[in-house]
C-alpha cells in the first residue's frame, strides 16, 4: 500500500492509495497509529486524505476505530477527508460516519481542525 505524507500547518495529511482490506490493513494500522502518536505529541492533527482509497473492508474500518480510540485517550485528533462515493457509502452503511468525522475535502478538514492557511 502506498502512502504520501505532508505537513499542513498544525496538521499532517496522510494519503493512503488503493484498497484497504485484509491484506493491507495491518500496514495501514501501523502507519496511522504511529503517525497519530507522533502528531499528538507535537500537537498536530491527523487528516486522512482518502481521495486515493477505492475500497475499505471491515478490517480497514477497524483501524479507524482504533485510531479514534487512541485519539480520544491521548487528546489527539484524527479526521477523514475526500472519500470517494463508494467508500462514503461503505462508511454510511457500516455507521462509521458516526465513528470518525468525515469532511468532503482536505481543505475543509484542515479548516475544521484549525490547521488551514
Amino acid at each position, binding site marked *: 500500500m502506498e502512502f504520501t505524507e505532508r505537513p499542513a500547518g498544525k496538521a499532517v495529511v496522510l494519503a493512503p492509495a488503493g484498497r484497504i482490506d*485484509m491484506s493491507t490493513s495491518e500496514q495501514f494500522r501501523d502507519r496511522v497509529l504511529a503517525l497519530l502518536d507522533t502528531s499528538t505529541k507535537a500537537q498536530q492533527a491527523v487528516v486522512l486524505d482518502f481521495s486515493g482509497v477505492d*475500497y475499505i*473492508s*471491515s*478490517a480497514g*474500518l*477497524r483501524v479507524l*476505530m482504533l485510531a479514534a480510540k487512541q485519539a480520544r485517550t491521548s487528546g489527539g485528533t484524527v479526521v477523514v477527508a475526500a472519500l470517494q462515493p*463508494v467508500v462514503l*457509502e*461503505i462508511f*454510511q*452503511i*457500516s*455507521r*462509521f460516519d*458516526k*465513528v470518525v468525522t468525515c469532511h468532503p475535502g482536505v481543505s475543509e478538514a484542515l479548516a475544521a481542525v484549525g490547521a488551514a492557511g
Partner: protein
Amino acid sequence: MDNMQVRFWGTRGSIPAALTAQMLRDKLVHALVAAAGHNIDTAEKARAFTDTLPFPISHTFGGNSSCVELQADGAARVLLDMGSGARPAGLDALRQLAGKPGEFHIFMSHLHWDHIMGFPFFTPAYIPGHSIRIYGCHAELEHAFRRQQAPPSFPVDFSKMGARIEFVQLEPGRYYEIAGYRVMAKPQAHGGDSYGYRFERGGKTVVYSTDSEHKLEDYAETDSFIEFFRTADLVIFDAMYSLADAISVKEDWGHSSNVVGVELCQLAQAKHLVLFHHEPAYDDATIERVWRETQRLEEITRGEHPVQVTAAYDGLQIAL
C-alpha cells in the same frame, strides 16, 4: 423434490419481540392512505395491491427467537435451535404428520435462553411415539434443557414429556451423516461458546451461523469462516448490529454485522446471504433499511461472484 427447503420460524435475536397494536395500526394507516383512489373491492384485488406496498407496510419481520427448519425429500425433519419459533414449527409438523409418529433432529447452536425457550412449547415433545434427537457440542446440552423445565421455572418437568428424547454430543470440525445430511459443527466466538453448522445434501449446502462474533484482527479465524462458508448456497448469518457498534460499544457481546456477512460470503463465493438474529429493538422499517443497505453494499463491492441478500422473517421459505 430432492431440493432443500429452508423455513424460518423464528428470526429475532436475544428475546422475542412482538409487533404492538400501535405498530400494526401505523401499517394500516399507511396502507389505507396508499389505497386511496384504487378500486379495491375484492380480497383478490386487495392481495394484489398489498404486493405493491413497501415490505415493512405489507409484512412484519416477526418476533420469534431463533428456529429454522430444513426439509428435503428423503431426509428427516431437521430444526436448528429451539427459540420461541419452535412452537409454530412443532404445530406445523404435527399438521403435516397427521397423526403419524415423527422423527425430529434438532441442532443447537448454543444454550442461551433465546435458543432453548421454545422447547417446553414444542408440542411433539409431549406426544408418545415421536422421536426427538437433540444434537450439540456443549457438555451441558441435556442439563440446560432439563433445567429450564425444573421448578420453579416451568410447571411441567422435562421427565413428563412423552416423546422419546435423546441428546447427542457432537465433536466440532468433524463431518457426520445425520438425518440424510452431511453435517459439520464449527466453534464460534460467543459468551459460553456457540457452534455454527454446515449442512450438505444433494449438491446443496446450507450454513447456519448465528450468535457469532468475528474478530477482524484474527485473520486465521476469518480464513476458517471463509472455508466454512465456501460456495454455500445459503448462509444464515448473525447480522444483529452495525459494524461500528459490533466492534466498539458492543464488542465482545458475541454478535456480528451485515458488513462482515457480505465480506465473508463474497470471499467464500457463497450464493445467498440471509441476515438473521435481528436486534429486538429494531422495528420493521429499521430492519428493512438494513436489508436495503446490505444489498447496496454487496452491489458496490461486488467482485466476480454476486451474493443475493435477504433479510429473514418469520414465515420466510427459501427453496434451494
